[in-house]
């Protein structure tokens, strides 16, 4: 296996609140290979968005990336750079943002500045990293708008975001993220706010662009259907931790963690007998503040037994490429240091 492009090691992002320390991301390990799409799936509050934002260092106080966390980026065989260690206002960090790693956000309406033209917002990224020439930056903006399949790209350059539909705005966001041909594209629920038909178009577009631009994609979503379409590898997050990770087929065909299994049972299937009730996972995701050291899913788990309420299971790779954090599959206990 080639060296991973992005390697996240023991990432812990904590929010220091008055009520206590909210451990939004608590010890996540992930590898993103060149050209690969890694889907991160989880409910609201699972920490998947904070994890994505941590990679871009977009977490603001009271949120902090805890010491010991590593976000290693290795580009073109150079020594890996630890993004977690870079000072917040450093040039090195700005050189990564937008140039090596780009991000697409959930709400294409609010994620674009309402008072700047689309062309300016795309060209701005190019002006920061690729060229000093405004005409050239504009040409890049025009090219990216064409690439993301916007009809009438010339006119869209001069448009303001509110003049575009939701789908077009998300295409603009993608065009902006692609301005500098990044190595990694982080997509934080980019299709959640869109109609289902538009969702599908955007997903297909992203898959195409990934191959054209030779990028890796870190795709954050709560939608299993979306993951099935775009990702090769899937990591399931629950309460700030990865509970299961495997390639997409294995996750769908042989899920091992009870949480993954119930997630899968909660999606409707066309053709399933209509009398059969759709399953919902009992309870809600608790706030990850002052959590006791034990399995975090135990309270909502139908298969939980005594051990689950006393010690925390470790993430163990039972079969190659398939790791599960559950005592049903491995008795290994997570060591807390």
């Amino acid at each position, binding site marked *: 296996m080639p060296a991973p492009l992005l390697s996240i090691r023991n990432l812990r992002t904590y929010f220091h609140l008055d009520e206590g320390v909210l451990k939004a991301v608590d010890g996540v390990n992930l590898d993103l290979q060149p050209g690969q799409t890694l889907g991160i799936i989880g409910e609201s509050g699972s920490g998947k968005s904070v994890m994505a934002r941590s990679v871009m260092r*977009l977490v603001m106080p009271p949120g902090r990336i805890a010491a010991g966390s590593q976000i290693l980026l290795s580009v073109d065989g150079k020594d890996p750079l630890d993004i977690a260690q870079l000072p917040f206002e450093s040039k090195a960090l700005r050189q990564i943002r937008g140039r090596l790693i780009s*991000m697409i*956000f959930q709400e294409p309406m609010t994620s*674009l500045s*309402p008072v700047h033209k689309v062309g300016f917002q795309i060209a701005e990224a190019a002006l*920061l*990293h690729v060229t000093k020439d405004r005409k050239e930056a504009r040409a890049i903006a025009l090219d990216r708008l064409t690439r993301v399949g916007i009809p009438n790209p010339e006119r869209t350059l001069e448009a303001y975001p*509110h003049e575009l539909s939701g789908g077009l705005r998300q295409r603009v966001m993608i065009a*902006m993220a692609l301005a500098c041909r990044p190595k990694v594209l982080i997509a934080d629920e980019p299709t959640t706010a869109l109609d289902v038909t538009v969702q599908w178009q955007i997903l297909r577009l992203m898959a195409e662009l990934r191959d054209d631009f030779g990028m890796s994609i870190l795709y954050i979503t709560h939608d299993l259907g979306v993951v099935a379409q775009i990702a090769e590898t899937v990591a399931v997050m629950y309460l700030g931790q990865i509970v299961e990770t495997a390639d997409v087929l294995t996750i769908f065909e042989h899920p091992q963690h009870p949480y993954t299994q119930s997630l899968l049972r909660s999606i409707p299937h066309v053709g399933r007998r209509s009398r059969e009730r759709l399953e919902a996972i009992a309870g809600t995701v608790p706030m990850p503040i002052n959590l006791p050291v034990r399995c975090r899913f135990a309270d909502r788990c139908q298969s939980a037994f005594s051990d689950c309420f006393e010690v925390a299971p470790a993430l163990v790779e039972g079969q190659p490429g398939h790791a599960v954090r559950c005592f049903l599959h491995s008795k290994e206990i997570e060591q807390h240091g």
Partner: protein
Amino acid sequence: MGHFIIRRLGYIAILLVLVSIVSFIIIQLPPGDWLSAYVTRLRVQGATINEEIIQGLKRQYGLDQPPVRQYFTWVSNLVQGDFGYSFSYSRPVKDLIIERLPATLGISVLTILVTYLIAIPIGIYSATHQYSVGDYVFTFLGFIGLSVPSFLLALILMFLGYKYFDLSVGGLYSPQYIGEPWDWDKFVDMLWHLPIPVLIIGLSGTTGLIRVLRGTLLDEIHRPYVDTARAKGLRERVLLYRYPVRIAINPLISTVGWLLPAMFSGQVIVSIVLNLPTVGPLLYEALRAQDTYLAGSIVMILSLFTLIGTLISDILLAIVDPRIRIEE
């Protein structure tokens, strides 16, 4: 845009007619008129005035005419640029206003500039350093500025200025220059007198602006588009001014128009306390003395400024915020 402006100018004309009627009625509303108040004052002082003189004066001032007739005389003269005659000053209203216009506009423009120069940087600082010591200090000072009546502040500053800085307080220049022609010394003397009125008149506006800017900017700083810009690799400072500040400044631009009438009448009470030769005290006196044409003219000019100011604000806002569409 052209159609919009023309239509709005039409509305302004209609509104001005309505304002002229309402203000004329309100000024006439108290019992009696300027003349009866004047006669009473003279009689109190012991003068004997018979009915014949009163009738003569009434004819002279046109007060014997029915109010509707008086109104139409006033308005038709207004349209021709004749603002009428002030009873109490025995001079044309136009001269009285023009005489006070340079000082009024000078103080107002200076106040507005100082207000913005102080408020905008502090507002940005407070929002970007929320809950820091500096933010708390400015918040504290801001609430004092908002809650202490400015005339009280005027009195305090006058006292301090007189006691510790040996400034002749009140007015725009020292007594020896009053009525003198303009020269360098008088100008320098005026510069020394400006800070107190400018600071006092500007204070509540400044603190208000700081609160508004801090509030809107705090909202904007956490908007997703800021993250988008940050994710592009922009410098924090460039980012701040190009995106959230640029948007947070919009409400300030949309209220620029309201400054126009404020510039003309200024802060009446402060101007009276500080004895400033501006239009504000003139309006106050005219209303007290039922000096119909003087008061009416100032009210009309104020209304005109308000309406034009609002129009300017609307046009400016449409220019700075593309989301605002002007209906054609």
